[in-house]
């Protein structure tokens, strides 16, 4: 099973390495969101600094929506999903392989977004372990959730418009907990940062459990 997961993950990362969609399209879009937010808040440094934690997660969430769409678009063309199934790969292996590849891509998006925040909004990190743990849990949760909904909408005519409608509300707990944890890590709040990170971990475990149970029903009918 894990060999199959690794195969799919490597396949998706190879496709990405050749097409560079994450690097050339998703990362610039996410950075553009940061710039547009600066316009929306009248380039007020104190306001932008206070909202930097939330802005990071909003930007990464939009990146995850684009990434999840892209991840399943490449399979919808030419019936690749059927080919993978006919090749003997289990639905769970396909889903987890794609989720792993998407998590790697989202980690890259998160790194660029964080760098954008440091450069554009002059934020300083006061608690690195908290920041990194929250970032890893939140990014992985977005990737799994994105893949679940990507599999749910793959091949549907209105997938472009439906995926954000389905994904964004369900990813809201990650957005909420991630923002609170980042606010503490960036020194803009004195909240219980590790409690919020624990909630992120609980949400991540929930998504993993649902993904495990739902991989079969979703990919058998995709």
């Amino acid at each position, binding site marked *: 099973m894990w060999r199959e997961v690794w195969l799919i993950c490597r396949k998706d990362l190879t496709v990405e390495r050749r097409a560079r969609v994450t690097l050339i399209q998703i990362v610039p879009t996410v950075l553009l969101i940061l710039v547009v937010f600066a316009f929306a808040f009248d380039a007020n440094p104190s306001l932008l600094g206070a909202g930097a934690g939330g802005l990071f997660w909003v930007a990464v969430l939009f990146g995850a929506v684009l990434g999840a769409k892209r991840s399943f678009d490449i399979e919808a063309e030419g019936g690749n999903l059927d080919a993978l199934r006919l090749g003997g790969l289990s639905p769970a292996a396909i889903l987890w392989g794609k989720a792993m590849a998407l998590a790697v891509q989202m980690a890259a998006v998160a790194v660029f977004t964080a760098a954008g925040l440091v450069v554009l909004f002059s934020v300083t990190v006061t608690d690195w372990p908290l920041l990194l743990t929250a970032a890893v849990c939140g990014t992985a949760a977005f990737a799994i959730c994105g893949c679940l909904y990507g599999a*749910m909408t793959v091949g549907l005519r209105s997938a472009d418009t439906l995926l954000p409608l389905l994904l964004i509300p369900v990813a809201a707990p990650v957005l909420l907990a991630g923002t609170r944890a980042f606010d503490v890590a960036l020194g803009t709040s004195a909240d219980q940062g590790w409690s919020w990170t624990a909630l992120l971990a609980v949400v991540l475990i929930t998504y993993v459990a649902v993904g495990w149970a739902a991989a079969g*029903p979703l990919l058998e009918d995709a």
Partner: protein
Amino acid sequence: MTGSVATRVLGAIGLAAAAVMAILALWVSPADAVQGDAVRLMYVHVPSIWVAYGSFVLTAFASARVLWRTRSGAGGTEGVIADRQARHWDRVAGAAAELGVMFTGLTLVTGSLWGKVTWGTYWQWDARLTTTVLLFVTHLGYLALRRLPAESRARARRSAVMALIAVVNLPIVHYSVDWWRTLHQEASLEIGIGGDRNYSGEMYWTLLYSWATFTLIALWIGIHRYRVLRLEELAEEAALEELLSVRRSEPSHDEPVTER
């Protein structure tokens, strides 16, 4: 077409119960010492969200049944029975989700009006309000997914997974008032024997009575909605059968073509 003696009786009882509820809520129950008459909105606001919670839990339960009945392996007569049961639970899930969305919408509207009177604004970025909106939008997405054209089994399974993910939001909405500092008051009644009450006397009993009335009305609407969904399926099947019979009655094109 969807009515029966039982549903007509149920509907009549529901309407009578609603009339009694109006009397209890508007005249028998006292005004609140702080909020005045605005507190009477509670008799619609709180039961609506309770019924919505129940509907979403039923959607999740029915969805789990759909996934269970459609798991691969069953064939022959057993497969036909499993398919019929899966369709039944899929209709239950769809009808319950529609009810849940309707009652969550009612909760948001009445909450907004209540907020205008007590907080001075229709909307606050409060944890309970925000998570309730997310619950509402998530299930709207579920209904949108159900309406997409697809093979019925695939659609049912896809929607079932979505419903099981969406139900995770329920405890977050319910406990948001305990987990975060919010403007919204804590739960009106604690679940379980010996739980805390924020209300007593006539207010407490009117609230419980309102909940029973809303549940009755929801049940009545839900049964009708279930039957409408069943009729829609039958109409689709009948239309398909008609098309097939028209196609079969057309002259065959397999006859050899004679060359001139």
